[in-house]
């Protein structure tokens, strides 16, 4: 594994994007930063700007007004960026599946790497999801190496 990628996995800075959620997921995300869970142990901090971020954390049912903005934010992000969908709404629109305002789930708009289900997911689930994302990247690199051989 290259040193750049190793560093990336050890300090993922998270940008938190709410695409019209009911705020429950957002509160649970903020819980991860509290003394009980303290994700700064693993180098995770909340970034104020998408330009600083390595992880794009999306919550909420994706409504029509948000779609162009999500695309813009995704394009603004410096690559490599990891997209994490948090909560039932951004996974499958949840409660709002029949709503006129929520045409598609998040992964039809931008590529999503990790899904964290729950309404809202527990902080433990969110941390487990990020760990899974890191393991996924590691596994991908291993597979690529084997493919090359």
């Amino acid at each position, binding site marked *: 594994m290259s040193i*750049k990628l190793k560093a990336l996995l050890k300090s993922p800075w998270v940008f938190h994007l709410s695409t019209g959620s009911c705020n429950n997921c957002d509160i649970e995300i903020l819980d991860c930063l509290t*003394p009980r869970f303290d994700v700064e142990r693993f180098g995770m901090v909340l970034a104020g700007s998408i330009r600083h971020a390595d992880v794009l954390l999306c919550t909420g049912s994706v409504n029509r007004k948000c779609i162009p903005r999500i695309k813009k934010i995704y394009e603004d992000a*410096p690559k490599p960026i990891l997209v994490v969908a948090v909560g039932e709404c951004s996974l499958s629109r949840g409660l709002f599946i029949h709503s006129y305002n929520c045409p598609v789930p998040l992964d039809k708009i931008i590529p999503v790497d990790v899904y964290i289900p729950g309404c809202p997911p527990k902080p433990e689930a969110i941390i487990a999801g990020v760990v899974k994302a890191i393991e996924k990247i590691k596994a991908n690199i291993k597979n690529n190496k084997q493919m090359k051989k």
Partner: protein
Amino acid sequence: MILINFIFLGFLLTAVIGLIATWFDRKITARIQYRVGPPLLQPFIDIVKLFGKETLMPEGASKIVFFVSPVLGLISIIIVSTILWNAIINTNKTFLGDLIVVLYFLTIPSLSIILGGFASKNPLASIGASREMKLVIAYELPFILSVLVSVIKSNLSIRIGDIIKYQIAHGSIIGSWSGILSFFVVFFCVQAKLGLVPFDVAEAETELASGALIEYSGVSLAIYRLTKAMMFFVLPFFMIILFCSGQIFVSLGILKFILIYIAIVTLIVIIRNVNPRLRIDQALRFFWGPMTFLSIVATILAMRGL
């Protein structure tokens, strides 16, 4: 020789100590909030990671200014730390007026943030940059007035070497009344220069989303963070040279130096953690009111030999 000092002492050693100081800051912050905090290598990992990321330029930004300004800040802080290390290593080899050079170069990191913020064509970055500019105007006056105390005490010499030699002969300047007052004022100016919490209006995370640095990514952001980390070492180092360098040329001097440095950083971090953010007008009033008054009093006391 100068080049070796420039690279090894001025850049590498200062960067390593500064990054460790950044870790210390984050760890103490975490302990104050009953958290565990990041591992020791975390600031290094952050910098390496940012060097590996894509560097973007916003559409319509001024390209040259946008990419040159972080480098400008880094180079100026390297020059400052080289001058300070040289003064500590050999007090006779400093040049005339290096104190003034240091004061000028210490302003350039703030200037680079201002230039970068205005160049990035983002409204939030512009607000951050203009606040940073007002903050520079606010703290520069009491800062220079307090530095003047050391100059007056060491028989009006603007060589850093002479200031150190005076303190070796007559004891540290902080031992006198004017020294204590000016140390107190410089302490708050350093807090503002570092952009830490009572005076972090320029990159207020909750309202401006990182302020002037909002459009920076990848290598440029890494350079800004490195500059900030190096300032975390250089500014307390400058304070120690100006006010406490009588302590560091005695037996066990290096140990005393490290202890004083850790004490200053810890105090800065504690002040950062127990205070809310001041508005820019409150910060201006704070620096032009009580701080300037105290530094004028300190200067008058120094003129009287107290």
